[in-house]
């Protein structure tokens, strides 16, 4: 332990001072932890506010709203269930990103005599340093952003300054969960690359993903729909189990996603079009990675699909304040999802640039023209995204039938939100891919210089 504890902070500090190449990845990891803890606190804070309003006697202006208070808590919990997976995913992705960036350096340390246990412990400490920095920054951003929420009102009451502020134990729980996940992701991520003294141990051919993934997801969705018929969301236990179940179903999209990527890309590998072939091969080589690239946007699509029917929901569906509140809530949920997706997309695109550095250099040297590179990258963004949204939006629509009692009219607001989300999702992904161009160019020139 002692070696890892004494060496890790030193190496981390030295690396920050060196600020070359890997610095980008470090900064991005801290940014991701900041965003995820900020949004986690915000979402938890909102739910806490509704819970407090429900619990406190006379907090709400009239009896009708007091009657609806529990529904607000329920809907807030739904929003949490929708967002918890992408928030945790962002934190996990940040940890993984760091691990990838370290692989080469860690191999050198293994060679001259650091045991694999020490390597893992050292990486966990490094991740914790980044995650704690992110949590502190995220908490600061959360507190600073509190006054802005006062512009909004729910239940005909403006949000009070302190209302979103979490009690210390809830704050600890939220941050603690994020840190725990970061550590777990680091350990798992390192186990996957098995750092041997000679570098990444074995670049083995990825195994074909099996159909059981699809079976599990279909079974979960059916089970959820059946379960929802027999449970009462208004009761406390019913609410909690439904929300947990929903989170589980959302998380399971991650199982089927890579499998779908593989399914769609396989025919593409039999073609004479270079760009199409390269894109398809890359997806086939790492369907999980291709999915990770768009996973956060898939969740966004899911949320948009899920909330299409929302404005017509609930027993007080015709009350204007209720519809107004739900639309506000939906907009906030989508906004949070969008920020998460933007951060995650940028992060995964950037890390792919580093992960594929060797391949890019080889292709560049072989004389593959820049136009092909561009075309490949666009395909790599658009194809997985189309698959992701094509799956998640219908799934969201399907599951939203649980919350929807009836549809009075065509949900104009919901559909326009959905369309906007899909368009934004595509723009965001293409934008993130374009944003990584300088990074890619940097890698090509840096490698050239090294071999002068």
């Amino acid at each position: 332990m002692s070696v890892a504890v004494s060496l890790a902070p030193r190496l981390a500090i030295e690396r920050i001072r060196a600020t070359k190449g890997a610095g980008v990845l470090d900064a991005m990891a801290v940014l991701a932890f900041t965003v995820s803890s900020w949004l986690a606190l915000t979402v938890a804070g909102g739910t806490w506010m509704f819970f407090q309003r429900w619990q406190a006697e006379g907090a709400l202006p009239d009896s009708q709203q007091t009657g609806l208070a529990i529904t607000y808590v329920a809907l807030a919990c739904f929003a949490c269930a929708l967002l918890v997976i992408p928030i945790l995913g962002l934190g996990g992705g940040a940890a993984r990103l760091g691990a990838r960036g370290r692989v080469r350096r860690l191999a050198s340390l293994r060679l001259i005599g650091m045991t694999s246990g020490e390597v893992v412990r050292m990486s966990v400490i490094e991740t914790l340093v980044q995650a704690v920095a992110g949590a502190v920054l995220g908490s600061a951003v959360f507190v600073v952003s509190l006054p802005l929420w006062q512009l909004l009102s729910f239940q005909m009451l403006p949000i009070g300054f302190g209302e979103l502020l979490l009690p210390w134990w809830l704050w600890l729980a939220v941050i603690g969960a994020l840190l725990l996940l970061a550590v777990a992701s680091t350990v798992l991520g390192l186990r996957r690359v098995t750092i041997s003294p000679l570098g990444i141990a074995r670049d083995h051919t990825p195994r074909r993903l099996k159909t059981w993934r699809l079976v599990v997801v279909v079974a979960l969705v059916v089970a959820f729909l059946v379960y929802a018929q027999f449970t009462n969301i208004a009761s406390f236990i019913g609410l909690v189990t439904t929300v947990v179940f929903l989170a589980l179903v959302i998380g399971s999209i991650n199982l089927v996603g890579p499998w779908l990527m593989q399914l769609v890309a396989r025919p593409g590998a039999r073609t004479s079009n270079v760009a199409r072939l390269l894109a398809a091969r890359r997806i086939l080589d790492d369907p999980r990675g291709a999915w990770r690239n768009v996973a956060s946007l898939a969740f966004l699509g899911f949320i948009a699909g899920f909330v299409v029917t929302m404005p017509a929901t609930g027993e007080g569906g015709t009350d204007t304040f209720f519809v107004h509140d739900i639309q506000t809530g939906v907009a906030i949920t989508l906004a949070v999802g969008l920020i998460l997706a933007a951060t995650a997309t940028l992060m995964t695109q950037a890390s792919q640039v580093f992960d594929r550095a060797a391949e890019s250099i080889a292709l560049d040297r072989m004389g593959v023209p820049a136009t092909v590179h561009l075309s490949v990258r666009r395909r790599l963004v658009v194809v997985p995204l189309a698959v992701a949204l094509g799956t998640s939006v219908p799934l969201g629509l399907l599951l939203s039938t649980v919350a929807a009692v009836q549809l009075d009219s065509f949900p104009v607001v919901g559909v326009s939100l959905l369309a906007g989300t899909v368009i934004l999702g595509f723009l965001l992904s293409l934008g993130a891919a374009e944003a990584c161009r300088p990074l890619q160019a940097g890698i090509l020139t840096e490698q050239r210089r090294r071999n002068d």
Partner: protein
Amino acid sequence: MKPTSTDLGLVARVAHLHKSYGTTNTRVNALTDVSVGIRRGEFTAIMGPSGSGKSTLMHIMAGLDTASSGSVWLGDTDISGLDDSNLTVLRRRRVGFIFQSFNLVPTLDISGNILLPFELDGRAPTAEEQAWIDRLIAVLGLTDRLRHRPHELSGGQQQRVAIARALATRPDLVFADEPTGNLDSRTSREVLTLLQTASREYGQSIAMVTHDPVAASYADRIVLLNDGRVVDDRSRSTPEEISSIMLGMEALS
């Protein structure tokens, strides 16, 4: 009782070593029944064309890779049965590495890199060791570079840092894998002379893997591999002699 490696004057040895990759259909035999010992205090070159198994042999001797069958000793320790942590500890106490790719830690300065093996062992160098390190730094001309980072140094300088790090703990054996592979010919000669000096003047045992006849000509002994077998084992030779043997091997295969 069988004689130990020490009795034979060896720092490392392998006996009836086999190594194959892949499954039955696609099996590749990297090493076939290789038995060879590295003598203490000598500078040994392990030579052969690419694909001859020389790097595999070195990796197995250094405990970086495992054999399919056969025995491997480092000193008197049978390392074929050791687990990963024990191998790691053995590596950091008794073996030094000089690789083609230098393998320096980019974020540590030169001094930090040289002292890293001690730090990993959780101790500071003794006064005697510190004196040795200072001498190495002076001989290798790194005195003015201690506060620099690896990327601020030329390839030759980086390789000298790697040499200093490998020799610092006075390991039983230093493994060098194509140590001049990334260097121009003048810098290569400097590095090879340094290795030769370390062996002659300080009695450092060195095993160097190379395909370059000029590099091999600096060694006291040359073990030639081809197609995963030891095909020749000769004492110091000129580059011309080594080249002609290599050419002969190519004609045969």
